């Protein structure tokens, strides 16, 4: 151990600075990571994490500061330079060739250069198998990458790092699309890499993961370095404070509220693809959480409930009126709406203004004789941006330029402006910063207190347990467990989820 600190760190970054037109994306940031160690790189969106790792990957060229590996200064002008210096970044968007086999992807550069000549095929398979052996991966080298799940594709990326004898592996939000079992497996892989003497930079904002695997934490905020400490010296609250820049006392505030009339009554709901015979009620002033692993049917239920996707059997009644015809028009008229999990594909009009995004569901209210009263529209939008403290320069700027949290607040405003009775929230905090998360949690509580029926679809355990008055667990399209707030435990819920 002591000789490790004497040794030059595997990677040292000093005073790194990057400027984009009009923005100082990274300002004088320093960090270091040693061989066999996991450094967590933390920060909210826009903190500068991705700018930093893109410079380490050779995608961006720094405007100032130095990068050293094993005490030697490096200048990267392309990703190939970074790889040659032993740095491999596993990005969120995996950069493999889907039509090639696993083995071909691992030795992609050599393969494309034809470096293995005629015997190449057998040779690269042998070497791929060797790497899997060393790292303890169970992957078929002949499988086509497009047929593999994301978790295995990640392992292929990591294998590429090993094939190039990388000494520093950077993982960018690696668990964002993994199931809990896959996350467990990834952590085992990380332990294995540590034991092989590889330094790892782990970018994430899931705090429970950080406490599990990181040795050190470096926190960035607004492009600046905030803190670097051993993980053991941090608490959940101290990390959040470092990231957000202010203290968040209560992640899940809770107003006292008594449930009112039944607003949603679902009986025997089935869809052709997945859902089977679901029945439940939701009352006014209640937050009902639905938990389930990937493919359990959360999103399917959310879409069927609001009339977006067809149902094959059963009835849905909103405030005692049937959702019939089963479409979103009727759903909206009865007062149920969905905040989709997929903001880009199902929520935002990216190049359209904040105002127009916000008033989409409410357009009829601002229409007189077919014409839109833009003054009234702007006034209403201004009211909501003030109320939810939506950060932006102007109401007419494209919503693309807002942060995920602010985008989510706009989409939520879209429904609140219309005035719903029931709101279905599908993964409402996906891809959102800790600070904005806390605000959205507070908002959900506020909505329930105002008498909304809130249906929350989530795969985040803390969110589920922190917010829900009652919990239903979905597995394979069926309800496999139900809990009230007092009786819900992480173990109980997970147990039901894998039934």
């Amino acid at each position, binding site marked *: 151990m002591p000789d490790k600190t004497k040794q030059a760190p595997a990677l040292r970054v000093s005073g790194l600075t990057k400027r984009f037109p009009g923005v100082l994306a990274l300002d004088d940031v320093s960090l270091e990571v040693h061989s066999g160690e996991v450094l967590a790189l933390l920060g909210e969106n826009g903190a500068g994490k991705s700018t930093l790792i893109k410079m380490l990957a050779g995608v961006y060229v720094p405007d100032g500061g130095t990068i050293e590996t094993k005490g030697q200064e490096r200048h990267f002008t392309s990703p190939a330079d970074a790889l040659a210096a032993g740095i491999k970044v596993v990005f969120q968007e995996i950069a493999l060739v889907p039509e090639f086999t696993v083995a071909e992807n691992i030795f992609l550069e050599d393969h494309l250069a034809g470096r293995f000549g005629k015997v190449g095929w057998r040779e690269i398979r042998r070497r791929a198998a060797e790497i899997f052996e060393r790292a303890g991966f169970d992957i078929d080298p002949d499988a086509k990458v497009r047929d593999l799940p994301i978790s295995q594709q990640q392992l292929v990326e990591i294998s590429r790092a090993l094939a190039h004898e990388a000494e520093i592996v950077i993982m960018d939000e690696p668990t964002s699309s993994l199931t809990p079992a896959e996350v467990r497996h990834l952590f085992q892989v990380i332990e294995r890499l540590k034991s092989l003497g590889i330094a790892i930079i782990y970018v994430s904002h899931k705090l429970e993961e950080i406490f599990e695997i990181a040795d050190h934490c470096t926190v960035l905020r607004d492009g600046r370095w905030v803190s670097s400490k051993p993980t053991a010296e941090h608490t959940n609250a101290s990390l959040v404070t470092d990231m957000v820049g202010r203290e968040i006392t209560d992640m899940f505030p809770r107003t006292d509220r008594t449930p009112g009339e039944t607003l949603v009554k679902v009986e025997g709901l089935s869809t052709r693809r997945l859902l089977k015979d679901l029945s439940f009620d939701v009352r006014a002033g209640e937050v009902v959480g639905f938990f389930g692993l990937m493919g359990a049917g959360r999103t399917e239920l959310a879409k069927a409930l609001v009339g977006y996707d067809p149902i094959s059997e059963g009835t849905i009644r909103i405030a005692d009126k049937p959702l019939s015809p089963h*479409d*979103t028009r009727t759903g909206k*008229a009865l007062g149920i*709406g969905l905040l989709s999990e997929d903001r880009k594909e*199902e929520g935002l*009009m990216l190049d*359209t203004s904040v105002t127009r995004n916000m008033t*989409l569901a409410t357009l009829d209210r601002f229409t007189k004789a*077919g014409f839109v009263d833009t003054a009234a529209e702007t006034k209403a939008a201004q009211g909501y941006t003030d109320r939810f403290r939506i950060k932006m320069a102007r109401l007419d700027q494209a919503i693309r330029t807002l942060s995920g949290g602010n985008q989510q607040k706009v989409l939520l405003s879209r429904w609140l402006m219309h005035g719903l009775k029931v709101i279905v929230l599908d993964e409402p905090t996906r891809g959102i910063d800790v600070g904005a998360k806390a605000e959205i949690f507070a908002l959900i509580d506020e909505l329930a207190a105002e008498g909304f029926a809130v249906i929350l679809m989530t795969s985040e355990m803390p969110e589920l347990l922190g917010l829900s008055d009652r919990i239903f667990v979905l597995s394979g399209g069926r309800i496999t467990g139900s809990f009230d707030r007092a009786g819900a435990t992480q173990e109980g819920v997970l147990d039901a989820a894998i039934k």
Partner: protein
Amino acid sequence: MASTETHDTPGLFRRVMESEHGFLALVLIVLVVGLGLATDRFLTGSNAVAILHQSSLVLIVAVGMTLLLITAEVDISVGASLAFASCIVMATINATGSIALGALAGVAFGAGIGLINALVTTVLRVNSLIGTIAMMMMLNGGVYLFTREAVQNHHQLPLFPKIATGFIAGIPVPVLIAAVVAAVGWIALSRTRIGRLFLATGANPRATRLSGYSPERFKTVAFVVTGALVGLAAVVLASLLNAGQPTAGQGFELTVIAAVLLGGTSLMGGRGTVLGTILAVLILKVIDNGIILLRWNQDLQIIVPGIVLILALYMDQRKRGHHAG
């Protein structure tokens, strides 16, 4: 304010380029000034009237196509439909002796074709590019079942030729028709609820549906409007050629779509303006006119717009890329 001005001195050019239609307006101005210097026959009243006259047919249909492209659909059958509808117009007037009935028949025919295109796209879920190419083929063949030859003017109503060749207050009638269509389209798209929902449908159909609307309904409206405008254009065309021409309108769809794209409407939907389309139609027709005035090879009339289109889309992409970065 003043400080940003000094801070950003190469600003004017950049601001023009980055404004919604600055680039198109600049191209049009450069073309007009350039041609004005190159030949003294360009900047004349009669030439201006000729350019506007030639722009009118394309513009009438391009306004509909702008709406349609905004909803992320396209109609390739407009040229074939134009020819067929012009035969219907003339045959109906021959049969009834009524221009109004002929015009109605033309518009109804075009709108009907639009409705079929819409149903193929929204109900059968056939990609509109493919569905309307199929429609084009059916119309190209079908028109010969209707008439083997041009439908001649047998009614000799004195008012009929005036639709295309008449003037009101010194302005050609087709130009007035196109101006009214463009003005209505402009207002509808920029000011009304349905215009808003056309844009939303193209920008994000799923979000539009989740917000309690039917994107299919707006696509259908856009198809039918485009078709009806084709019918209207067919009335003008029949009058202009003084016949219903089954062979007319070849390549018309390409001119229309090129103009709409040049005008900044996105092929992916969700973005576009009628003003951009107007500017683009004028640019294309000024180029056409210039090539003839300069006595260049007429084949350039097809080549040059192709080049202009690529350049314009490239500039547009660069502009947008700059914003995103």
